[in-house]
């Protein structure tokens, strides 16, 4: 059991790294840094010297080679592949060193899920960054992280969690979880449609609290990709609609989390309340910095990672509320 616990913990850390690398790839516009999959311009790593680059460009004349975009993409792929190997090993351990059927089941599910996630990585490239696919790919990443975390929670008996009884908070915890996932969807949709900078001011957007918005094309999930979706294709009001929805929804999330946090605080679960509070405060601050300081790379990646932390924290609250 101990080795499952340790391996799933390493899995959590690795999943965070892969999510960060994925965000980095997206934020430096390197999603199409390699036009093919699983190789990069037909190479196992990426072309480095002049001869290789010449060969690469002759293979894909439509895609001029940029090493600064190939590197993030390839690094992300190999870390993700390493996480896949780790999942295989976790399944092996779950059958070898425990009789816990639930852990075996979840570890196997995790392995299947990671394979699908790899497939979505392929679709991201082959469908030229179609927003709905990129969004699904990120949700897959967050789900992979949550699955590793779930197996970790199951394989480790936290004493502090045994003293917490919050089964009366199931409804509000559930609502918070659903609203948070919706907010993460809006955040990813903002990123995949290149709408992060659609509003350059805060708290107003383009000088107004009710800017010109086009929800119909902003949230049209069957949109056309054109030759590729790099840098986005939507016109400004559509991007503003996406961006502003993410802000309004953040307000909604904050309100619901304030209710959840105060309920937790008075249910003798102060550690959970304070963890949610600090993560939420950090996340809102990072979001505002993203807008005001024109999307600094590390802040944008951190915004992504703290979202993942918030998801895990809210998942923990639900885990404790719903467990028997």
């Amino acid at each position, binding site marked *: 059991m101990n080795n499952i616990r340790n391996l799933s913990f390493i899995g959590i850390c690795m999943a965070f790294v892969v999510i960060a690398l994925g965000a980095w790839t997206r934020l430096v516009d390197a999603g199409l840094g390699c036009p093919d999959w699983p190789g990069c311009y037909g190479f196992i790593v990426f072309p480095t010297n002049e001869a290789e680059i010449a060969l690469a460009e002759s293979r894909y004349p439509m895609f001029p080679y940029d090493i600064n975009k190939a590197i993030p993409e390839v690094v992300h792929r190999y870390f993700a592949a390493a996480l896949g190997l780790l999942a295989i090993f976790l399944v092996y351990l779950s059958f070898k060193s425990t009789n816990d059927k639930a852990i075996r089941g979840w570890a196997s599910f995790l392995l299947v899920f990671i394979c699908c996630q790899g497939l979505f990585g392929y679709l991201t490239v082959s469908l030229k960054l179609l927003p709905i696919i990129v969004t699904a790919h990120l949700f897959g990443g967050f789900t992979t992280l949550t699955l590793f975390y779930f197996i970790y929670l199951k394989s480790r008996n936290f004493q502090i969690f045994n003293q917490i009884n919050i089964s009366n908070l199931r409804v509000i915890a559930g609502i918070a979880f659903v609203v948070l996932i919706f907010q993460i969807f809006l955040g990813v949709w903002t990123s995949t449609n290149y709408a992060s900078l659609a509003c350059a001011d805060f708290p107003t957007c383009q000088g107004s609290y009710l800017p010109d918005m086009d929800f119909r094309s902003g949230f049209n999930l069957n949109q056309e990709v054109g030759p590729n979706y790099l840098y986005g294709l939507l016109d400004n009001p559509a991007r503003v609609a996406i961006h502003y929805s993410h802000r309004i929804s953040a307000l909604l999330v904050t309100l619901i989390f304030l209710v959840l946090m105060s309920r937790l605080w008075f249910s003798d679960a*102060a*550690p959970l309340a*304070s963890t949610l*509070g600090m993560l939420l405060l950090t996340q809102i601050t990072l979001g505002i910095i993203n807008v005001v300081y024109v999307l600094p790379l590390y802040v944008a990646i951190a915004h992504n990672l703290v979202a993942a932390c918030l998801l895990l924290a809210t998942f923990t609250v639900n885990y404790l509320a719903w467990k028997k």
Partner: protein
Amino acid sequence: MMLICAFVGMLLAEQTVTSYGYLFISLAGIALCSASAAAINQVVDRKTDASMKRTDQRPLPQGELSATHASIFALVIGVFGALILYYYVNTLTMTLTIASLIGYAFIYTIYLKRATPQNIVIGGLAGAAPPLLGWTSVSNTIDPYALLLVLIIFVWTPPHFWALAIYRKDEYAKESIPMLPVTHGVVFTKLQIVLYTIILFIVSILPYVVLMSGMIYLVSAVLLSSAFLYYSIKLYYSSDDEDAMRTFQFSIYYIFLIFLALLLDHFIILS
């Protein structure tokens, strides 16, 4: 004590006292926020407090005050204090004050305290903030001299608190709070107290070394630090728990007198 340190920070930050009203309003904002932090601490620790002699007379464990009322009170005075700092003082002071509130009331009380024997060493950083808060409220910059005052309190906190922890170690053990005497034994803790007091001796001389203070401070610091060192070495060779209490009590006089010496030195040199 925290307010005295903040007040000294303010007075040291400027050459002459310009406006007592301004000093008072800054101090009020910092006081409200630290009171809020203390109230949150007592709400979170109400069960632990009830079973410890030092704290069982507090209103929450006594049942005189409900957790709901105390939490709302903490929230209101915390927000009020932050607003005072924002509108009448400056944003930097407000940010730092809220950061130290979070550091003490949440990070220290909720996580560190029960997680590691280094709890008070790390948490001591939040407790050491007041002179910096006082300083920034006047100067609106993070001055290296102010950080030196923070360093003095930061280094002073472990020997101060561990002396008490030795005296109260059975109560901490009963509540399974991993204080150093509980996890690593009394002898090891006493050695740490001596070592930290030596560091404190050196740190307490730094204000003279960097030309922040003069001879009056140097003489006071050497005398006070020598006395503290005497108490801690005596504690190391003693098997009487009362010596731990004496060291703890002296440490309180120590920090008070060190700051008084800084202040005297500052104004005597000016006049």
